[in-house]
Each structure stands twice: as C-alpha cells, then as structure tokens.
C-alpha cells in the first residue's frame, strides 16, 4: 500500500501521522491522512481543496502535476511526501 508522510515542519502546528493506505489517487491518500488528523487538512489544502500554493507533493520522486483535483494515480509501492516548497520562504 502507498505510504504518505509529511514534512516535520508541520509538527510545530499539528500531528502528522505517517500512514499506509489503499488509496489509488493522491486525493484519496491525503483524505485518509486527514481522517487520522482532521486539522491537517487546512495546513495542506486551501478552502477550495487545492494544494496550498507553497506546499509541494512528491510521489516516488515525481512532483505532483494536478494541484487542484489531486488526481495523480498511486501505485501500491508509491511513497508520497508532502513538503514545504521553497517558494514559500
């Protein structure tokens, strides 16, 4: 199952569970993490459900392309890292 992990920077603000999920898309994988900690959602996504402008997500080394619908597909052995983008300071 894909692994989802978050930048340790977020631990200043809220818990960041590292989870394994059977999700087939990034959207569903993030949703599983937000179920574990609902407060995490609005640190990663804005109110329109898009990735925040200065948050970046890599899937097994690939930078996520679809930042709005979050439709990037996940393979069973993918590793998803949610990180802060350097554009944000």
């Amino acid at each position, binding site marked *: 199952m894909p692994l989802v992990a978050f930048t340790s920077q*977020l631990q200043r603000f809220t818990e960041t569970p590292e989870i394994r999920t059977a999700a087939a898309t990034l959207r569903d994988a993030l949703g599983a993490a937000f179920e574990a900690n609902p407060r995490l959602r*609005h640190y*990663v996504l804005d109110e329109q459900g898009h990735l925040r402008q200065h948050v970046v997500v890599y899937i097994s080394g690939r930078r996520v392309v679809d930042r709005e619908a979050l439709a990037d597909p996940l393979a069973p052995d993918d590793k998803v890292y949610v990180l802060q983008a350097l554009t944000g300071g």
Partner: protein
Amino acid sequence: MVDRAWVASRKGLIELRRRAGGWSVARTSFVGDPVSMVLPPDASGRMVAALNLGHFGVKLHASDDAGATWREVAAPAFGPQPEGATGPAWKVVMVWAMERQGGTLYAGTLPGALFRSIDGAQSWQLDEVLWNQPGRPAWSGGGYDTPGIHSISPVGDDTVLVGVSCAGAWITRDGGAHWGQTAHGMRADYMPPEQAFDPDVQDPHAIARCAALPDVLWCQHHNGIFRSTNGGVRWDELHAPLSSFGFAVAAHPADPLTAWFVPAVKDQCRVPVDRALAVNRTRDGGATFETLRAGLPQHDCYDLVYRHGLAIADDGTTLMMGSTTGGVWASDDAGDHWTALPARLPPVYALRFG
C-alpha cells in the same frame, strides 16, 4: 496609565510593557511566524492573533489569558468558488484587519472580503452582500496581487465602514444588508485624468475614525490625505508638510480636529523625507500641521511606518509607532517627544495598545 502594547511582526507577536524604566519587550509568541494582525485583549483577556504562515496559510489563534497561552481557532475562509467566477480566487491570502464591536469580531482579508464572527472566532461568516457587489471582481490590488480590506470601522451594531485597496471605501448602515461606495471626494493621481475622482479606484492606505465624534474620519491615501466630517459621505483633501504620501494615520479618540500621520517621500521612494523620520500632527482639522521630530532618527533613516504601524491610546496622548525595519518609538506627549524602544524588532506589520 497605558502600559501594554502589541506588535504584530514578521517574526512573531511581541508584547511590550511599560515599567519604571520605560517600554520593553515582555513576551513573544509565535516566534518565527509572520503575524499579520492582532486584536488586543478585551476586558476578560480574550485576544486573537492572525498568522500568515509562509507555506501553510492563514491561521487564527485565540488566547483567554492575554497572550499567556494560545489555541488555534477557525480562520476566515470562503465557500466553494462557483464555476466561471471572475476576479481573484476565493482563497483567503491574508487577514489584514481585525476589529471588535460588541460581541462581533470583524476580519478584513486579501482578497477584499469582510468576515464576521459572533462566537469568538469559532466560526466566520462571509459578508456576501459586499463580496457579491457587481463591480467587486474588477477591484484592483494595492501593494499586493489581490485587492484587500485593511480598515474596518464599526459604529454600533449596524454601521461599518471598510477601506479597500484599491476600491475606495464602502459603508453599510443596516448591518450588511446593503453596501454603498463612500469614497467620494478622494482623488487618485495614478489614474488617467478622467478617472481621478472615480471612487471605485481610490487607494485609501488607512482610514481612522474619531471615537467620540464618529462622523469624523481621516484617510491616509496613496497620494494624499483626506478628511470627512459626515461619516464618509464626502471627503476633503488636506495638504501636509514634507509629503502627503504615507501609510499610517491615527485619529485622536476625543478631539475631532487632531490626527497624526507619518510621511514618506512618495510611492516610488518609500523612505522618510531626507531620510529623517518625522510625524505630522494637525490640531485644527487639517488646516495646518506641525512636523514633530524630537527623539526620532534624523539621518540615514529608512524606516517606513506601515498602515497599521501607528497607534494612539485611549488617553489621546500616548502614541507608539513601529517600522518596516523594526524600529519602535513611543511618545507620552502626543508626539512632541519620542523615545526609541531599546530593541531591534522584526518588520512591524501592526502595533496596537490594549
């Protein structure tokens, strides 16, 4: 005696206290995080800080013990953006203004929206009438990519005036059921001549109200200073010495003829005139001004006092200002003399007593 002030800064919320030796830093919260605005404690110690985290967005924190401890509360947020909506994205970029009137909290944001909370920031409601003004998608940014509400001036439960960069000033007198433009008389020298007096393009940098006579309003505008004596129905231009460009204005809480401004050269050169920091004060409604310099740096000074960086206390004589380069100065005599805070702070976004 006024003995506490709050500095919302680029790198934290800084509490200043006045003790025997003068003002000094008492506590810093949110070290390292940008704090875009602070609402000082009410009588029960309840206060709110707005954070603008570089990566993770706008967050609000509330304290019930005047800043000793904090907890995260709801931040203003838009509902789903309709398909095909024009104008800026329906995403709160920054909380630029916060005010309290009775049991209502107000937040002004980038993009230019007004939110209310009647449950102590547990939830926020968008003022949809103002947001849905037909011309709102055409409002332009001023200093930021999107338009924003930086000044919120409530009077009683029903009247609220907001300053918008760049869309003039808007007022409701029925609690938000209707809003109307109220920047008539302001002049924009950055527009084509035929549009100079169009209220919808005005860039009021800050609007302040005389608490005792709320029909008296002062505006430090992008290219001038304006005053209204009829609650914003009509604005008259004033002319200050050194420069009429600046960001900050403080209105005397009781004397409708007195206000303070901090001039800078011009929009293309945002430094003090001759790199010497000064405050302009009028005590006659803007007919004349005094330029006050005692205790302020008079050479090699690049300090710009931003729109929320100048505060007047309820006593009408205690002033404090903070700059974009982290200087803070206080006055106990209505600006005649100033004393520098013995600390170098981060860039100051807002400074408030309370």
